[in-house]
């Protein structure tokens, strides 16, 4: 057994920031990651980091833009804290040596981004995430923080109290990929889940193959509710063949979208006459698909993004990485021809319910970054808000887990935050995979930390053993069927029939998953086993996304429903919550907080 004060699961931006913050509070910290820190998907972020740094800008404006962008589904305390902390975090990153793009006076450059009322997006070329990830990993190395790389955390060690709000998290169970060894990691003070995105629930995504929603699924099974899971952001500019992201920076610098008739459709068809190409991502995604559906798409699939008019010098200075991506993954020279783009799954606004200090309703369990939902982005995340999110909330979770005195949170969490029960009737019983035996909470009324951990380790060892020894079907087909139905039915445009179909397919996937086994019997670097365990997580998050989408009967932000073409504020300024409930998802709601100690936000109609 390994033992530390704070265990951070995942070593992307949020995990690294959390580890540094906990370390600065004097805690003995360990990072446990299924990759190696520099392989994390934060490295793929391109555009930039929003923070009110310059004269004429103010955190209030950043907060206001974020709330408006969220389509009034964000919680004001989270948004205000975020906008207040972001400048300090960005300057600190600069002090840590981050190679930002520079202005003539030597200060970090800022550029305009969609939905921002001020050019407040700090960036390092079109590879901001890469530099942020490496800069923070360097700081982790400097501080000598322990890293367990290529250790896949498969489960949490949580006490088995009936009420999740009475439960305590004492650590995690790790699977050492190189050796097949299963070990417990005891956390004396806290566990922080920073496992990133869940894009692999879809088959056309900008997310890495490793982004399988592990944190969401583990926390969910441990009794922490998942919040606003239907709010999936589709990025309007991804390369059609691979899903590789073409940064919003291209449109920020002045890139133009054209349909097959070479019309600048954002204006000509009136999708966003105010903002054109720089409208929110959900607006642009729907516009592109509408063009394609109306027969004005190229090869019935995509549209063109043109940046040639920006000139070679500007492109090389600010968007060079985009040239490489278009060339390597689509065979297109962006200096010479427009790039093909279409919407793809990009970001999960929803996730593990937590408060503005990262705390979940399970004592000792925290969440930060994309896997978490504080909720900051509400129904739509603005470009450039993901990187400051992982800095701000990674740091807060790290400090809190290490025992720093954080002010009491304004956001309440857990089942007691419920305001009303939900009433979605799915077409099939969603059902559970091995309900009961697979529950995270120990089943021996164990409350002593070591006992809880030992029990969980034992259970994982048995699970691994049975995967390796039994015969069964390959997970790959189950995984790809779920991914396909999600992209087909739970995409940019959503209809009740399709959502119900997706639920049936996911349910079928669950049933087939009961027969899954691992063909490779090896204990050495068994990726077959890793992918099989990840597929379980994909099933859980896919189901949560679809149930949330079915429940939310309105059109808000990224969530468009054919049957409900209006934002319905009287009824729907509330979060959709899903609780595990022994494997059968239980739906309920909690109110959105439009008021914090600093601001009160009045919902305004979205105008394009």
């Amino acid at each position: 057994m390994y033992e530390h004060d704070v265990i951070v699961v995942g070593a992307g931006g949020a995990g690294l920031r959390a580890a540094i913050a906990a370390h600065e509070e004097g805690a003995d910290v360990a990072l446990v990651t299924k990759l190696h820190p520099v392989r994390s998907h934060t490295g793929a972020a391109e555009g930039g980091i929003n923070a009110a740094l310059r004269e004429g800008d103010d955190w209030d404006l950043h907060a206001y833009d974020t709330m408006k962008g969220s389509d009034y589904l964000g919680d004001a305390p989270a948004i205000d804290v975020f906008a207040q902390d972001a400048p300090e975090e960005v300057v600190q990153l600069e002090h840590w040596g981050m190679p930002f793009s520079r202005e003539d006076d030597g200060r970090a450059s800022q550029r305009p981004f969609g939905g921002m009322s001020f050019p407040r997006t700090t960036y390092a070329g079109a590879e901001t995430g890469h530099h942020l990830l490496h800069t923070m990993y360097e700081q982790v190395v400097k501080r000598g923080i322990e890293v367990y790389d290529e250790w896949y955390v498969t489960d949490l060690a949580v006490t088995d109290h009936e009420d999740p709000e009475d439960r305590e998290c004492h650590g995690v169970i790790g699977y050492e990929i190189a050796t097949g060894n299963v070990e417990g990691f005891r956390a004396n003070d806290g566990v922080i889940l920073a496992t990133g995105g869940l894009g692999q629930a879809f088959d056309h995504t900008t997310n890495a193959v490793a982004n399988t929603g592990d944190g969401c699924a583990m926390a969910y099974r441990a009794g922490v509710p998942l919040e606003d899971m239907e709010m999936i952001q589709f990025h309007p500019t991804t390369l059609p063949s691979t899903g590789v992201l073409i940064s919003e920076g291209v449109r920020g610098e002045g890139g133009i979208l054209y349909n097959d008739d070479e019309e600048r459709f954002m204006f000509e068809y009136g999708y966003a006459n105010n903002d054109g190409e720089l409208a929110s991502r959900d607006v642009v995604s729907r516009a592109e698909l509408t063009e394609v559906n109306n027969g004005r798409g190229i090869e019935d699939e995509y549209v063109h993004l043109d940046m040639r008019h920006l000139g070679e010098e500007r492109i090389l200075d600010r968007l060079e990485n985009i040239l490489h991506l278009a060339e390597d993954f689509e065979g297109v020279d962006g200096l010479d021809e427009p790039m093909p783009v279409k919407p793809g799954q990009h970001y999960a606004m929803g996730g593990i319910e937590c408060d503005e200090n990262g705390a979940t309703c399970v004592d000792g369990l925290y969440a930060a970054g994309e896997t978490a939902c504080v909720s900051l982005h509400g129904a739509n995340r603005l470009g450039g808000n993901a990187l400051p999110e992982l800095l701000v909330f990674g740091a807060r979770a790290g400090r809190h887990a290490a025992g720093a005195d954080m002010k009491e949170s304004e956001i309440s969490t857990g089942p007691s935050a419920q305001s009303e029960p939900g009433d979605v009737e799915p077409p099939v019983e969603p059902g559970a995979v091995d309900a009961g035996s697979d529950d995270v909470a120990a089943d021996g009324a164990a409350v002593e930390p070591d006992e809880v951990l030992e029990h969980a380790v034992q259970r994982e060892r048995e699970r691994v053993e049975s995967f390796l020894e039994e015969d069964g079907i390959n997970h790959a087909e189950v995984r790809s069927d779920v991914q396909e139905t999600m992209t087909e039915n739970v995409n940019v445009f959503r209809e009740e029939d399709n959502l119900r179909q997706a639920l049936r397919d996911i349910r079928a996937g669950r049933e087939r998953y009961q027969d899954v086994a691992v063909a490779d019997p090896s204990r050495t670097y068994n990726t077959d086993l890793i992918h099989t365990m990840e597929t379980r997580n994909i099933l859980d998050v896919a189901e949560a996304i679809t149930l949330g989408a079915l429940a939310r009967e309105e059109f808000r932000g990224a969530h468009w429903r054919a049957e409900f073409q209006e934002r319905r504020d009287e009824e729907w300024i509330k979060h959709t919550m899903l609780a595990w409930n022994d494997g059968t998802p239980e739906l309920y709601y909690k109110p959105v907080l439009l008021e914090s100690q600093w601001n009160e936000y009045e919902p305004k109609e979205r105008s394009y």
Partner: protein
Amino acid sequence: MSTIEQQESDETEAETETETAVESPGDRRRREKAERAVEDEARREAEEAAHEFDEAVELKVFRYDPEVQGKEEPRFDDFTVPFHKGMTVLDALIYSRDHYDSSLTFRHSCRQAVCGSDALFINGRQRLACKTQIADLDGDTIRVEPLPHQEVVKDLVVDMEHFYEQMHAVEPYFDPDELPDDEMEEQRQSRENREKIKMSTRCIWCGACMSSCNIAAGDNEYLGPAAINKAYRFAMDEREGENRKQERLRIVEQEHGVWRCQTQFSCTEVCPKDIPLTEHIQELKRESVKNNLKFW
């Protein structure tokens, strides 16, 4: 269970008992499973051979697993993969794994050339599988091997520990003498200076350069191109002070540092991020000489 099957299974158990008396039930199940896996694979290969694709690529993939029967001896497996335009070597590997042999093992994650985990030896050269278009490769067969000069863990996966150690050896973190008095004030960096270090900051730690380097192959202590490039990134950053720069130069001019480089350019040639590694090493040699001259 039919009588014949019963007999066969009895025979298997009998053989097992005489051959390996200490084999535990778990080990036996694993061994049997491995044997079945080998048989299944052979059958699949036969089926594939009978199947004709309109257009296909032949993948010849290095295989090795130290603990699975029939795979302890390194060998090559052939996979036939249907080809479509835009397909990368990584796509073909994933197809082979998902359709033919789920035990085929390789690292990959972002599949957009930024996580650096799928550097492999493809047709005799270090490349990122995810950004290698099959259409750009010559020949009918694509040969995929693990990075040379690294210890193979299994199939295409190599042990990266030594590479990480060398990266850490250069103290790879920013360390300025002083920060602005106002903690909300950025340090100034000129555009020219950012431009100077820009390429060096693009390293994704894939290890292709180290694997291609003849010197690193023969000298395990040589810092190697990636680590020296990392040192360059900081030594050339004007925001770090002169004293710190001299410390950095001391690290890279040690016995197994920059002077080991014989300017063969193989690192620069294979770098998937086009970092002029050899140039950076040469520049540090010059800096190091200049630095030492001051004290003569």
